């Protein structure tokens, strides 16, 4: 099968959906001729013109609000938010306006919009361009949240997001834009709420999101050499969350670790760990482990920044401790 980059996969998904549905359009900063700073949307303006690939001023709350209104009245906007850190600027429009329309109207209004943005540290971009803020939006009922971890997922999830009748936040790992994966030529969609079991194993379940999926897979490879077989699961969407797949796996392996690049405090790792504790408690041989980003703003200094993100080594070490029953020695 052909291989394309995550960036190309997103580009293809948007182009295909824009061809399919003339009410779909893109709104964001430097999306047209510049094709975004990461060049993800390059070429779209040539095909769809500036009426459908719309450059905005640097007015995130404003254009997000406009997208909400446009979505409520018969279009399918795709908002391009240049950095995930700018979610803070659009929170009111996204969470107070978009997320609540369906419910507040007793199901009479809908907001079919997609907001695509990114996460991820270690680009030396410091505290306001490196955050992984998906937990914030996961907290708000009415929003769906997709987190692709490969070009294949990025394409399939983006197409589903655009067709969804709800506001969907889709968050890409900005360090993976140039990573290639096998992506079919023919059309496919990835349904929301279906986790992917990326590696089978019997000793522990590693549940990893987005940027941390590669970390989990590499850790699993290292562990396999020691005879520890880790099962690796990517939930793909955090809202809705495919609890069944996660719980079934943990009941089988009897150990679990959740790995996510958001801050560990009050975050994704805590939420998923608690669901496992609820539904697989009697099957567990060890406390569910949480591995998140350090609870500090992302520092610029490279030597410090590298400490803040979960690494393969840290995951391997922790898994060994869990499996060998040495957990409380390292805690």
């Amino acid at each position: 099968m052909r291989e394309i980059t995550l960036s190309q996969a997103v580009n293809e998904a948007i182009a295909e959906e824009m061809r399919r549905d003339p009410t779909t359009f893109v709104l964001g900063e430097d999306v047209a001729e510049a094709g975004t700073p990461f060049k993800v949307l390059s070429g779209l303006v040539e095909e769809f013109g500036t009426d459908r690939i719309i450059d905005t001023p640097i007015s995130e709350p404003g254009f997000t609000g406009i997208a909400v209104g446009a979505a409520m009245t018969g279009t399918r906007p795709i908002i391009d938010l240049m950095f995930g850190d700018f979610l803070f600027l659009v929170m009111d429009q996204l969470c107070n306006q978009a997320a609540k329309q369906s419910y507040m109207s007793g199901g009479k209004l809908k907001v079919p919009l997609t907001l695509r943005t990114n996460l991820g540290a270690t680009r030396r971009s410091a505290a306001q361009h490196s955050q992984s803020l998906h937990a914030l939006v996961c907290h708000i009922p009415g929003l769906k949240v997709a987190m692709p971890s490969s070009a294949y997922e990025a394409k399939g999830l983006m197409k589903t997001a655009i067709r969804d009748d709800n506001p969907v936040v889709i968050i890409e790992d900005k360090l993976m834009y140039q990573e290639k994966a096998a992506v079919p030529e023919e059309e496919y969609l990835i349904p929301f709420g279906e986790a992917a079991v990326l590696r089978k194993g019997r000793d522990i379940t590693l549940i990893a999101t987005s940027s941390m999926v590669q970390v989990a897979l590499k850790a699993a490879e290292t562990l396999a050499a020691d005879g520890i077989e880790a099962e690796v699961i990517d939930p793909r969407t955090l809202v809705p969350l495919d609890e069944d797949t996660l719980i079934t796996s943990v009941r089988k392996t009897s150990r679990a670790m959740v790995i996510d690049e958001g801050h560990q405090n009050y975050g994704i790792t805590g939420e998923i760990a608690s669901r496992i504790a609820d539904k697989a408690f009697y099957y567990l041989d060890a406390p569910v482990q949480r591995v998140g980003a350090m609870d500090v703003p992302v520092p610029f200094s490279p030597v410090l920044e590298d400490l803040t993100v979960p690494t393969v080594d840290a995951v391997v070490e922790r898994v060994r401790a869990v499996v060998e029953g040495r957990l409380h020695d390292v805690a």
Partner: protein
Amino acid sequence: MAAENKDDCESYLHIYSQMRRIRAFEDNANQLYLSGKMQGLTHMSSGQEAAEVGICEALESTDYITSTHRGHGHCVAKGAHFREMFCELLGKVEGYCRGKGGSMHIADQDNGNLGANAIVGGSAGIATGAALTSKLLGKKDVAVCFFGDGALGQGLLYEVMNMASLWSLPAIYVCENNLYGEYTHVSEMAAGDLCARATAFGIEAHELDGQDVLAVKSLADDLVARARAGEGPFFVLLNTYRYHGHHVGDINRTYYRSKEEESDWKDNRDPIALFGTWLRKQKIATEKELEAIDEQVQADAKAAVEYALEASYPDLSEVDMHVYAANA
């Protein structure tokens, strides 16, 4: 304007030297990046020196500024040292922010620089808050908010300008219009009259050639004095140009601006060259004297870079220090 006395001459030479220092800082920072010695995102302010120096020369070190992602120039102009600045850009512990901020968050606490900011328009509230402090505590400090034309898109700016005007705060909003926000021309991002945004709130607004350092300085002298006297806020629109790409990686620029436009600004409107010519014409300095300043500045920059390259990174234990301020 002519040089009247010795003090004036010294102040002119200081202005020249400060502009030179910014240019030298940026040239060195660019080299550090291109040679792979510096990581991350960094934005050069070369070409905008007259705006930065013209304003900051009118300020005391106790006055406040807030800066932007393109913040090295403001930092130098407000009195920062090369050594601590280069250390910060390289993530070293002797940097102004102990390496935690980097290029986009550099701040100089001793000179009233409340910091660069990686959120466009993100410092408009901070600058206005500093002006409110000055008023509430009965101080005479003025707060200057530097921002780019792109920040005119941010609603926060309009909320705070409204309050600053309602409350007569000693704030000066300085928009450096370098014609582009990233890869988009200002005409595609800001509708209508730029200064009218301020006058609509009853804020006195001035537009001027941001490449003419003396014009900027003399307007700033006047507005700063009036802001101290309680006549603020003010709005200043400075027309200028950035010579480099939006950030150091923006090399191929012809799809959004022409080479001719770039060379027109560089060859005919360079703020340092223009001011150098003026200094010579006024017989304030000879060509030789200006060259001596240039050489000194280059040598200072080189020494600071060498120092910073050898300097230590923070101890790893610093990673979770400073998340919260220690209660006094």
